[in-house]
């Protein structure tokens, strides 16, 4: 047991840093909300050119073949340089399903375009009223008489960035008479340009447009776009749900977040003295920092177990729960730090084309919306209550 990095690891870190130094300033230190589609794609292409888009993929499809430690270093340095993330919908969500269960044609068609960023993917899992109960799929897909197409009707919701997407992967019900809800579901890939698809924005309480409703009306999808066997979609989806633990906890980003929070506290004044010298406030920051250190080592232990050959499992629920709670606490403390200047709300005006000076200090902008927005982290991807149910059942055997 040791924490040492090998000389190879150090060399790798240097290589990563050299690459990150080359990232242009307009891609650094911007939140996802502030990043345009073009910015996101520019970043994706940079990483693609470097060959580092998909560390977790098998090497044959374009994975990097990195060790656990190398993946850890990559995450850590990404956060340190505050570069954007690679969106997960293609690379970490649909791709493992395609390379694990897809046909050779599907692999050849989709994987390279995911890697290169040519296709922007979104996720069609959630449905209205279903929440974390993903197996209650009601969107229907019926085979045409010639057996060549599915006709899809229904609605997906909470679809992140569907407004930019080229493709959507969907769970659809192909056998409404299956004896169990989890049966009779198929996994299909749908071109967003297909007639009958309509995307409607959902505005969230932070004032942002990140998620959407996606409506399907007689959407014609070629049978070749089904992954694996008909009615077996739930099996494939489940694999996806527990896949890819690296980064789920967001440790490296939260570390950076704590640094930023300390900077804010260093600028806010309390009775003329920086808030960062107030023991009461700072003890909350310290507590969070210690929580995060514990989570970091929990993640490292999990990664180590994974690289020792134990497959992804319910431990990802542990990382999800603690990671999301820490992210929420971070925005909560930031809002607390900025005092009165949490109040002003300027929507997107302060982001684009706002020519006047901002209201209040720069660092206060968006602190309340961020806090509002972060509420989602304990809701999406299976609410934290669901995660606790999973741990109770799968780990504690209750």
């Amino acid at each position, binding site marked *: 047991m040791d924490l040492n990095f090998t000389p190879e690891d150090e060399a790798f870190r240097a290589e990563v840093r050299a690459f990150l130094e080359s990232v242009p300033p307009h891609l650094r230190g911007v939140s996802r909300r502030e990043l345009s589609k073009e910015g996101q794609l520019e970043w994706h292409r940079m990483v693609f050119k470097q060959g580092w888009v998909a560390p977790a993929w098998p090497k044959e499809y374009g994975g990097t073949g990195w060790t656990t430690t190398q993946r850890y270093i990559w995450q850590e340095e990404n956060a340190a340089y505050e570069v954007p993330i690679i969106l997960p919908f293609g690379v970490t969500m649909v791709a493992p399903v395609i390379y694990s269960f897809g046909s050779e044609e599907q692999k050849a068609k989709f994987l390279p375009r995911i890697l290169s960023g040519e296709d922007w993917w979104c996720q069609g899992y*959630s449905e209205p*009223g*279903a*929440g*974390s*109960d993903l197996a*209650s799929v009601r969107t229907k897909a019926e085979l045409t008489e010639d057996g060549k197409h599915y006709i899809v009707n229904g609605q997906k*919701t*909470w679809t992140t960035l569907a407004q930019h997407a080229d493709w959507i992967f969907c769970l659809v019900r192909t056998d409404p008479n299956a004896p169990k809800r989890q049966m009779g579901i198929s996994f299909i890939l749908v071109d967003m340009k297909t007639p009958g698809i309509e995307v409607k924005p*959902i*505005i*969230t*309480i*932070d*004032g942002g447009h990140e998620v959407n409703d996606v409506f399907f009306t007689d959407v014609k999808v070629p049978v070749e776009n089904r992954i694996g066997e008909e009615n077996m979609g739930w099996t494939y989806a489940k694999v996806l749900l527990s896949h890819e633990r690296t980064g789920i906890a967001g440790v490296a980003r939260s570390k950076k977040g704590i640094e930023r929070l300390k900077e804010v506290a260093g600028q*806010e*004044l*309390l*009775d*003329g003295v920086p*808030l960062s010298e*107030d023991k*009461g*406030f700072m003890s909350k920051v310290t507590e969070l920092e210690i929580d995060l250190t514990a989570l970091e080592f929990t993640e490292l232990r999990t990664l180590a177990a994974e690289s020792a050959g134990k497959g992804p499992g319910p431990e990802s629920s542990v990382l999800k729960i603690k990671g999301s709670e820490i992210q929420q606490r971070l925005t*909560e403390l930031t*809002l*607390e730090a900025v*005092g*009165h*200047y*949490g*109040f*002003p*709300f*300027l*929507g997107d005006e302060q982001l684009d084309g706002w020519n*006047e000076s901002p*209201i*209040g*200090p720069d660092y206060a902008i968006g602190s*309340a*919306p961020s*806090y*509002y*927005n972060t*509420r*989602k982290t*304990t*809701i*999406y991807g299976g*609410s*934290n*209550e669901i995660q*606790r149910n999973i741990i109770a059942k799968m780990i504690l055997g209750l």
Partner: protein
Amino acid sequence: MDFSFTEEQTLLRNTVERFVQDKYDFETRAKIIKSDDGWRKDYWQQFAELGILAAPFDEDHGGLGGSAIDIMVMMEELGKGLVVEPFLPTVVLGGGFLRHGGTAAHKAEVIPAVIGGECVIAPAYAEPRGRFNLADLETTAKKDGEGYVLNGHKAVALGGPWADKFIITARTSGGQRDEQGVTVFLVDKNTDGLSTRDYPTVDGYRASEVMLDNVKVSADAIIGDVDNGLELVERVMDEGIAALCAEACGVMKQLVDKTIAYSRERKQFGVAIGSFQVLQHRMVDMYLNYEQSVSMTYMVNLKLGEDATERKKAASAAKVQIGRAGKFIGQNAVQIHGGMGITEEMDVGHYFKRITMIDTQFGNVDHHMRRYAALSE
């Protein structure tokens, strides 16, 4: 000891409750906060007609002579409707300054205008670098002949865009954070040298930055005593806290009730989510937090008349309770509503946004923990 409401109080509550039910449904409010003005001036006039704006003022000046408890019941109902019209800044705070510190002329002229709905007041007490310390003022008021010249920047004056007059705290003497040397001024918005930057707030209100650039006012503008204004400010702010706590109770009541109702209707895995024991106990804890908040709101409103130390301790204790309870209730209301809780279309998210900012208003939990502890020494 008596914990019952008078008939007049029940009547006042019903008046406001009915107004909110009839004229302030969620869609109407959504339109109001998105409108250019951000409020309904006609509603303000209706408040005047209903006598709501008259509640705390002496009968001599056309008021109803109501008590803190009267304000409390009204604020609770206004909170339930997330009403954005500036009752708290104008009637509670503005009115408080006028009642406790106004000259005979102020009382004779301004109070009737407030009661009549013709004068909106926005207190501008906060500053960009002062956080929640009411004495931490960089704004100065320098003696200039018979009058004063004001210079400075007041931050986040809620209701500012609609205001006819500002109440402005400024330093007339002493060092930046000295208790002595604070003076309160009542300043017309259209005074030369006074400018504002108006903006919406994250919880649906409007506020202003108020810039003072050699603003000349006469000595008549002073409310209370020169240099000795801090106690007046603290008193009025404590009354504001008591009223805000009542508003918060209204907001929390809605969050608790709406969450319980939602949990009964919303089905997951084939059953109502309200049948899950974990959510049941969570809602019980929301309810406990709400009940404890109501208790503290009664407490602070009943103690506003006690000596300054008792009053301040009561206000700070209540604000701590409301801040903590509001966070717990707000966060869990959203969590139990799931994705629906964070959409702009559904009401629960708006109650959450307001209860969040109530913690900041008049000083957050940390500030009032410190204030309470200092007063206990």
